[in-house]
């Protein structure tokens, strides 16, 4: 075991442990102790250097005497000091009881437990003092005050292709150019034109004739489609007027027209 070093940081000053262990010599100010365990430890260290050999009974008596003297001085005592006093008074009476009347847990175990706690607190206090006494940075050892510092400069290598560049430009232009809608004049056959044409042609057709046969020949594509559509609508109109009959065998089948049979409309 490392020797028990006196722990006396300047900020804390209970009576120096080297003085005679008379309780009333301890400065009667409870600000000095961090709770009853701390006070007990101070008392214990006045009693013995080796905490493993202290007498808990003697320590208990010292503590109780100390609390008593504080009471006589009418000092305000924090509740935990009184709780500890009560507990120690109980421990003391148990320790003095005849053996067979001992309660459970045994007073010896309680005393031992207190002793172990004091040892542990003392050990940590000692460790703290030794830790603080080490060569500490900024107090005993110094790093450079203004190190230049190491720099890891991440240098970006930007990637971009010419295609990406001109594509980007194209997209800006496309995005920002005003959109102009020009409606082209398309080559169409008007409905009137179609009605006239179908009406005149169907008169000559006695038999069922396909709709396409009524279209003008050699039309180019857009006009041909327009003519087909107009002629179909024209046929419907003429049929409505009762001037021709329309027949189709099924959906998407060819459409046939003929001049309306007098008196009959079915076809």
């Amino acid at each position, binding site marked *: 075991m490392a020797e028990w070093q006196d722990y006396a940081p300047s900020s804390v000053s209970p009576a120096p442990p080297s003085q005679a262990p008379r309780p009333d010599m301890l400065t009667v100010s409870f600000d000095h102790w961090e709770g009853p365990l701390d006070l007990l430890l101070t008392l214990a260290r006045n009693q013995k250097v080796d905490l493993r050999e202290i007498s808990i009974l003697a320590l208990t008596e010292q503590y109780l005497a100390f609390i008593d003297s504080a009471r006589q001085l009418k000092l305000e005592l924090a509740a935990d000091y009184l709780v500890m006093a009560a507990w120690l008074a109980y421990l003391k009476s148990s320790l003095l009881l005849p053996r067979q009347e001992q309660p459970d847990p045994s007073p010896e175990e309680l005393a031992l437990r207190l002793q172990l706690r004091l040892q542990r607190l003392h050990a940590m206090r000692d460790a703290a003092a030794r830790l603080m006494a080490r060569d500490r940075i900024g107090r005993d050892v110094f790093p450079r005050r203004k190190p230049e510092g190491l*720099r890891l400069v991440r*240098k970006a290598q*930007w990637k971009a292709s010419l295609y990406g560049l001109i594509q980007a430009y194209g997209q800006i232009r496309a995005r920002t150019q005003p959109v102009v809608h020009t409606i082209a004049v398309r080559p169409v056959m008007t409905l009137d034109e179609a009605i006239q044409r179908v009406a005149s042609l169907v008169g000559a057709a006695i038999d069922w004739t396909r709709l396409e046969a009524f279209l003008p020949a050699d039309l180019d594509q857009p006009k041909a489609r327009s003519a087909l559509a107009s002629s179909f609508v024209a046929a419907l109109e003429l049929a409505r007027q009762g001037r021709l009959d329309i027949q189709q065998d099924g959906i998407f089948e060819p459409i046939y027209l003929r001049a309306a049979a007098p008196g009959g409309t079915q076809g």
Partner: protein
Amino acid sequence: MIQEPDDFLRAVEAALFVAEAPMTPVALKLHVGDAGDLDATLRVLADHYAGRGVNLVERGGRWHFQTAPDLAHILRREKDEQRKLSRAAMETLAIIAYHEPVSRAEIEAIRGVQVAKGTLDVLIEAGWVRPAGRREVPGRPLIYATSVEFLSHFGLSSRRDLPGLEDLRAAGLLDPVDLALEGLTGQSVVENDEEEA
């Protein structure tokens, strides 16, 4: 040959090590006292550190430690990172290339969206864009142009090599349908990539 460093030398060494700035012998003495020959000690120290990674040097009567000049690359290590130019940066670059010299306001007018602060910085850092003076109009805005590095990076001998609008149209790069399609396939037509510039 090698003598054990004495305490005076060790003190001088330590004092110079922690110093925030180069120190004159007078200032050093305030720390290390008069227990030794300071000038001689400084010379011994300078000799000791001469071939090392850190040197003790005198500049204008003041002494300080510094890293050996040939090790500068160690202290400032550059690491190349391949990074793709953001769309915002690419568009800004394209506008500068096609319209240079242009001001930021003009770039914004052409792009139809604001140019984030970092976007131009990235292009300048990449070495492709340079400030090219100021436009003599109210506010005297900075104007930007492309650099020689820009031409060499994109394999152009001059800006005239950039395809014109007609070329772009012929290549389908001005086709709004493509643009719409790209938007549909999620290839970022929306201007949410400003911050990554």
